C-alpha cells in the first residue's frame, strides 16, 4: 500500500517536472532580454531538474525490478538533487552578475537603475589607479624568502 503511494508521488513529480521544463524552454525562446531569459532558466533548473530528480529517487526506492541496486539508485538521485539545488542558483547568479558588471550585453531596460548610480565611474577608477601607481624600482624586499641561511 505505502509503496504504491510513494510510486505515484514520484511519478507525478517526474511528469510535473517535464511540464515545468517545457514551460521554461518556451520562455527561454520567447523572452526578448537576457535578464528575463535568466528568470526562465531558473524555472528550468529548479522546477525542471531538481524536482523530477527527487521524484525519480522516490520511484527508485520502491522499484523492485532493480533488485538490491535500488538503494544505490535512490542515493545517486538524492545526491544529484541536492547538488543541483546548491549549484544552479549560484551559477545563474554569477552569470548575471558577470553580464551586468562586465557590461557585456545591452543595458537592462530599466527606468531607474540605482545600482549603477552607486557604482564608481570609469574615470574615477582610472584616476585612483593613477594616484596609487607604484614607481618601478622601489619594490620592498620581501621579509621572508626561501633561500637557505648560513651558507
Amino acid at each position, binding site marked *: 500500500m505505502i509503496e504504491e503511494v510513494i510510486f505515484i508521488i514520484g511519478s507525478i513529480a517526474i*511528469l510535473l517536472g*517535464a511540464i515545468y521544463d517545457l514551460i521554461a524552454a518556451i520562455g527561454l525562446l520567447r523572452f526578448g532580454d537576457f535578464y528575463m531569459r535568466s528568470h526562465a532558466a531558473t524555472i528550468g533548473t529548479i522546477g525542471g531538474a531538481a524536482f523530477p530528480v527527487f521524484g525519480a529517487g522516490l520511484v527508485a526506492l520502491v522499484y523492485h525490478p532493480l533488485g538490491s541496486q535500488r538503494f544505490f*539508485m535512490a542515493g545517486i*538521485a538524492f545526491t*544529484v538533487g541536492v*547538488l543541483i539545488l546548491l549549484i544552479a542558483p549560484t551559477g545563474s547568479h554569477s*552569470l548575471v552578475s558577470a*553580464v551586468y558588471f562586465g557590461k557585456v550585453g545591452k543595458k537592462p531596460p530599466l527606468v531607474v537603475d540605482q545600482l549603477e548610480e552607486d557604482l564608481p565611474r570609469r574615470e574615477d577608477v582610472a584616476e585612483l589607479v593613477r594616484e596609487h601607481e607604484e614607481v618601478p624600482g622601489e619594490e620592498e624586499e620581501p621579509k621572508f624568502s626561501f633561500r637557505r641561511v648560513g651558507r
Partner: protein
Amino acid sequence: MNFESAFLNVLYFSAVIYALAFILYGIRAIKGPTTADIILAVDCLSFDMAAFMVVLGIYFKSIMLASGAIILALWAFMLDVYYTKYVLYGEVEV
C-alpha cells in the same frame, strides 16, 4: 500494481516532453545573440539532461548511467564560473 509497466507509461510521456524541451533549448543555444545566452541555454540543457539521465537509469536498470549525472551537473557549474572569471578578471585561474 505492476511497477514496470506503470513506469514505462510515465517514461513515454516524460520523454516526449523532455525531447521537445531539449529541441527548444538547442534552438536558443544555437542562435543566442551573446555568449551569455548560449551559456545559459547550455546550462539548462545539461541540468535537465542530468535529470533525464537518472530517469533513464531507473528504466534501463543500470546505476552506471545514473552516476554520470553528477559529473554533468558539476560540468555545467564549471562553465558558469569560468565564464564569470574570464569576463570580470580577464583570466581563468585554476
